[in-house]
């Protein structure tokens, strides 16, 4: 039996620090191990003993790319613990803020990090040499997303205007109106970007994923909804830990998530959201997705690039709708009195379901915090993808296969920093003596 090892010591264009080791024996992948070795930052422990109102600002520091997601899951979980539901105008403003994060995060990943893989180029710098107008357009879209976050959240990175109960200050009408022209431009630009991406060459690979995402009664999910799966699960966030568990794997400083019932892996993120909520997309976005070659369900992880751009198109349109209807909520926040209890909530971070649970006391102090980021939930699925991709491409040279593995990991836009964090890839083809 021929055996070989292929090693990639550093995975570029992902957020955080990790490594991958793959051992191949003949036509069988013996072992796939995604090592995450960035030291954990103990945010959950750090939250204990802090005032429950500090959670959004502390958890925003977990990630520089998706701080809004952390803030949103945190404030909603705190409000759930205290039995408070926000009035619609405040919910709409939070949804507008989330649109900004989806836009900037998805555009960063699609163009700066992911697109080079499909063009055979080393980086976005090479794309910029060939198609400067395309990259300029991407930068402008990202800037539009940042502008939403700055207008609603107070600043682009680690927003400071979000509080338990609403916002510290409602943006003035003119501050939101000032976004509208650029959002309208962004919607058109996103549609053009989706058409461009539809022309890229995607590897032919599909897997029968168990999709897990929020599903809302009326809207494409961001801040609210029930947790549903493609295999019939339908639960409230309060039941999350009865169905999903995290385990510590020796190779990783991030926990791995799986379904308790059968130990199976599942997928969160754009592919899952899209598959479980296609009918919640506006008709024009559905049409754009179909024109880009997507069905109502996409099981090709490489085409997550397309799905992200569908979501960018949606987010621009949704942000424009919310901006046009905007009137400053009065008051900008509602009173949330602390009470003994616990609250759970899940929102849809750009990379997928982000679950928070807090126990707080009547003295307003946090007793316990649990945070399950999307990349932790996707880790077993990333490894399963890699196993499938390698088995389907064993005839590739080591270099080509190494690149394909990196590309496969980048499909997930993994925020290893969130999950806690860099990637070194080792492919081991035993017996062939390959490096």
């Amino acid at each position, binding site marked *: 039996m021929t055996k070989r090892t292929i090693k990639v010591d*550093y995975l*570029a*264009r*992902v*957020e955080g620090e990790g490594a991958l080791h793959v051992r191949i024996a003949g036509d069988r992948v013996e072992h796939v191990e995604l090592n995450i070795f960035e030291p954990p*930052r103990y945010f959950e422990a750090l939250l204990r003993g802090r005032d429950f109102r500090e959670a959004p600002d502390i958890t925003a*520091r977990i990630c*520089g*790319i998706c701080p809004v997601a952390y803030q949103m899951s945190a404030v909603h979980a705190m409000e759930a613990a205290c039995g408070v539901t926000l009035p619609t105008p405040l919910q709409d403003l939070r949804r507008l803020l989330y649109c900004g994060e989806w836009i900037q995060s998805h*555009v*960063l990943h699609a163009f*700066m*990090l992911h697109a080079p893989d499909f063009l055979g180029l080393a*980086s*976005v*710098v*090479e794309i*910029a*040499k060939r198609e*400067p107008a395309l*990259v*300029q357009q*991407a*930068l*402008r879209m*990202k*800037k539009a997303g*940042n502008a939403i976050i700055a207008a609603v959240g107070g600043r*682009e*990175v680690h927003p400071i205007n979000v509080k338990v109960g609403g916002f510290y200050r409602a943006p003035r009408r003119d501050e939101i109106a000032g976004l509208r022209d650029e959002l309208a431009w962004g919607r058109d630009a996103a549609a053009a970007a989706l058409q461009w991406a539809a022309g890229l060459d995607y590897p032919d690979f599909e897997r029968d994923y168990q999709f897990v995402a929020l599903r809302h009664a009326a809207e494409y999910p961001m801040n609210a909804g029930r947790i549903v799966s493609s295999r019939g699960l339908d639960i409230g966030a309060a039941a999350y830990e009865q169905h999903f568990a995290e385990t510590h794997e020796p190779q990783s400083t991030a926990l791995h998530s799986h379904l308790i019932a059968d130990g199976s892996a599942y997928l969160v993120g754009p592919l899952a959201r899209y598959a479980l909520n296609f009918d919640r997309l506006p008709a024009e976005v559905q049409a754009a997705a179909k024109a880009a070659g997507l069905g109502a369900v996409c099981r090709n992880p490489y085409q997550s690039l397309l799905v992200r751009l569908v979501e960018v198109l949606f987010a621009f349109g949704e942000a424009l709708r919310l901006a046009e209807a905007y009137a400053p909520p009065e008051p900008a926040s509602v009173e949330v009195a602390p009470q003994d209890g616990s609250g759970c909530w899940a929102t849809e971070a750009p990379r997928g379901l982000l679950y928070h649970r807090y126990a707080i006391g009547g003295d307003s102090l946090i007793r316990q915090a649990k945070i399950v980021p999307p990349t932790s939930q996707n880790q077993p699925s990333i490894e399963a993808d890699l196993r499938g991709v390698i088995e389907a491409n064993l005839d590739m040279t080591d270099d080509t296969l190494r690149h394909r593995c990196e590309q496969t990991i980048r499909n997930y836009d993994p925020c290893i920093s969130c999950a806690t964090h*860099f990637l070194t890839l080792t492919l081991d083809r035993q017996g062939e003596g390959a490096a």
Partner: protein
Amino acid sequence: MRPLVIGIGNTDRGDDGAGPVAAGLLERSGLTGALVMTCRGDPADLVTAWQEHVAVIAVDACVSGAEPGTVFRLDAVRDPLPEGFGAVSTHGFGLAAAVELARAMKCLPSVLTVYGIEAAGFDAGAPLSAPVATACRAVADEIAQDLQEALCTKPA
């Protein structure tokens, strides 16, 4: 158009905060005539920010093996920055890539001066190391002086 001074980094990660700290010192010095901002180092945001300015000064932490606190002054318009320049970057994609991205799109500012401050460490929650804190003050003073001279000598 006012020059832009941009401090790059994360004040929660030890000496990665050198850029924002230097920018903050400059801002508090009362210097007028320049726009001062901070950025976490996302190349897309950097390129977007400096496209609107003719002259840009960027300050970032770096790791070259030199003594902590060593200051490098580089002309990024004339030469590419050393590969991987910048200490802790988003997605392993930092200031050096941002410069080349702008160069590829032919949108580098006319002047792009980069100050690199050699870092000692990037531990989460750690303060600036003493040599880097000293270097931040020196860099802020040098930028203030350069800007003052440039503004004084600017034709009416």
